[in-house]
């Protein structure tokens, strides 16, 4: 099967601090890939490198067969790569509708964007003129997802969808993830808490100290996880 995203020996640093020490990763097209690891393992940094927000010191980021090192994040976004960052990926001082207009800027007409977003998350339709900063945490995460999906991405990068949300909300968000995946979108999910994401993931990898320590099917990895988290 072809890989939509490949990372080849990525090294990255913040100032003098080396954070990624040779990350190799391959996300097959149309799959859900879970990237797990303890705090500070470098997961967020990996996603930032893929999205073009952080320049790697060496290595290659290959999307759909093309090396995209040095591409601007906005260009990648316009070409169908969507990162929903850690925390709430929203603009607190913009209304829900304005978020959708942002989404509509790059790829699709507004009407289509609205249809996609409100279909998936009807709750947002009721709050279309509310400032995003005043939405509840779950609604904010829905809005972030809605905005991402409405761009019809080919590759979706999700960073800690579950952060600070009730288990039920997390489950429903992951149902959406599974649904999108079934429509052919490739998804790379970063998570701390493995249980929920491993239910929907096709593949999983564990990251330790800026390197991928183990890759495999979710079932094969269960045993490795405690090692990665507790460093034993």
């Amino acid at each position, binding site marked *: 099967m072809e890989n939509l995203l490949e990372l080849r020996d990525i090294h990255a640093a913040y100032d003098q601090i080396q954070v990624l020490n040779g990350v190799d990763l391959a996300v097959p097209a149309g799959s859900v890939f879970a990237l797990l690891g303890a705090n500070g393992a470098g997961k967020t940094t990996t996603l930032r490198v893929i999205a073009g927000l952080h320049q790697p010191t060496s290595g290659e980021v290959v999307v759909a067969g093309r090396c995209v090192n040095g591409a601007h*994040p*906005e260009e990648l976004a316009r070409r169908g790569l969507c990162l929903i960052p850690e925390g709430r990926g929203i603009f607190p001082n913009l209304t829900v509708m304005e978020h959708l207009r942002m989404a509509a800027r790059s790829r699709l007409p507004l009407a289509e964007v609205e249809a996609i977003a409100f279909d998936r998350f009807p709750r947002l339709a009721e709050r279309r003129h509310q400032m995003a900063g005043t939405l509840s945490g779950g609604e904010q995460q829905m809005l972030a997802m809605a905005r991402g999906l409405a761009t019809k991405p080919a590759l979706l990068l999700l960073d800690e969808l579950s952060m600070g949300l009730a288990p039920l909300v997390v489950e429903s968000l992951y149902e959406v993830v599974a649904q999108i995946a079934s429509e052919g979108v490739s998804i790379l999910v970063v998570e701390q808490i493995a249980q929920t994401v491993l239910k929907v993931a096709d593949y999983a990898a564990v990251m330790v100290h800026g390197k991928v320590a183990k890759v495999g099917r979710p079932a094969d990895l269960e045993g490795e996880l405690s090692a990665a988290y507790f460093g034993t």
Partner: protein
Amino acid sequence: MDKLLTFSITGLSLAAIYAIGASGLVLTYTTTGIFNFAHGAIGMIGAFAYWQLRFDWGWPAPIALAVVLVVMAPLFGVFLEAVIMRSLEGTSDATKLVVSISLLSGLIGLANWIWQPGVQRPTSRFFQGSKFTVFGVFVSWHEATALLLAVGVALALRFLLHRTGIGIAMRAAVDDRDLAMLNGARPNRGSMLAWALGCSLAALSGILFVGTLGLEAGVLALLIVNAYAAAIVGRLRSLPLTFVGALILGLGEAYWQGYRADVSFLSGSNLSTFGSAIPVMILFAVLLVLPNPRLKGRAARSREFFAAPSRGAALAFSGVMVVGAYVISGFMTRAHQIDLAEAFAFAIIALSFVPLVGMAGRVSLCQLSFAGIGAVTMAHLGNENSLRGLVAAVVITAAVGALVALPALRLSGIYLALATAAFAVALDRWVFQLRSFEVFGLFPVKFFEAGSVSVNRVEVGGISTASPRAQAMLLSIVFALLALFVTWIRRNAFGRRLLALKESEAACATFGMNLTLAKLTVFALAAGIAGLGGALYGGLLQSVNPGHFSFVTGLPVFMLAVVGGIGSVGGALNAGIGLATLAVIPNLIPALEKVMPVMPGLVGIGLGRNPSGGVQKMTEAFAPVRRSPRALLALTGALALLTVLRSIDVIGNWPYVLLAMAVAFASPLVATTLGGRGSDPAAGEGAGEDGEPIALEWVGLLRPFTDDDRKSMDLSLGHSSGVSRGTA
């Protein structure tokens, strides 16, 4: 009734001009996070450019307007964004502030260079000042145009920011720039548009002002400072509130002019200049009343970094400086001795920035105004006994400093900078213009007596400092002592408290630190230092006027201190030397005279690249020399030799200076080839460069980690197995 209507219309049109200027400011601030102190100066340049086209070259008004507003101003905005502002991304508030203040100062210099000041420049209002009547009151078309334009600007901006894609993207980038990019927005385009529009609006308000007032660079650039008050009412975010603020300002000013004469207790001569200070007073007041812009929990981590100098280094620095001043002043003409003394006077004033800005992270733009108060105090109280005058200057300015700080305690960042700027401008426009008056009939208060006052030079214990060289020595010694004092503060508990205050107020509060006392103390301390510097500076000049201590004059002092490195006494010295050099260069190269006022601005704008200041860089470059005793000896020997050669007139002044500089620059190279202790940076375990023990948190920064450090760290953290883990 007619009178009310007349002044209301004047007030409304003034409000319209303020609103246009302020909305441009708000636009650039919200979309780029940079509060543009130079906004007024850009408007001023726009006004001059318009004058040039319209009145000097006689172009028709619509064409001149179009060229300035649609072509020149936006292009200038785009240029600013691309060349200067974009590189400020991710720098601290202070750095952004300095760059825009430098721009302000540079643009004033530029305008004075191109359009010679003091020349009458005829202007007229739009439509040649023709009028129409409303309810029996004359309204000029100029005023009506201003009103219509303000309404148009309000509607257009509202539409842009809420209805257009690029406007929404601009607001999105304000919230989260990275996320906006992830949405496919191009924030740079948004910023560029904001700067282009901002400059256009600034120019428009500047042009409208010219119809009412004359053309003078400094006045115009600061006039739009008035508009800042309106922007602050809108808390730099809300355009509707900004318009409300503009209304308050415009009407307030118009009614003051209209009705002051009718109210007996307002018609006193001391209030005649008060009118022009009203907007800055309102600015000050609004800053104080507005809801607190929150204690910033996690201050944006700034790139600036200052290490504490060791006691030995500070002593050596002071000693070398005083001896150097003594030796060099011996070779100088009297005029240059005065220049040297002036350099130290400015260095003392600039030194007041070190505890306040460098340590506590509080930007004050009124230090030169404090110096002015010090000079005035010395003038009036130091006549019989100069020492008494000096003490009074320090005490009174420190008290005024604390008084100014008291209401401003909760402010920080640009808000504090604005409040102190407002204070400085209020002194310029009003207080420093006052004649003497009695406070409740108790004691007289005197300022510059609406002109200039003479200041005595210091005389201590029968030693007079009347000669220029004695002045230079006095000022260098005072600077050296103050530098030691400031270094001592940096190293003691109070200094650490100030640094903590700079890093995070919220964290300090949770530690139970008394923030109020620390802030008040540092303000009073800084004001006192500036006051002392001002008193001595006054003595050096012997006659001072308000112009010596104006807000605009103070800007280069601040900028050059920042460029030198505002966290170190070396930065202050740099400011002094820099200012004196700027004053001297035109004597040497007359062609450069007009360029000089632009220089501090250019230097300040260049700061973005090196936020810790030049002195820090130089110190780093000289590190090998300090570590190698042999190189240090060689350097001292070479300088001594040159000095001897100069004193027996084998070489002249210029070869002396050039050779000394060459020796200094060559010394790091010599040191590295000589080797010595410098080649082994870890020499002297557990100790810094000069053998003193250094605190744990500096290990790794001042010298590399060793295994011993790891051991002691593990011990103190209670990791008994710490060392063995590495080998397990």
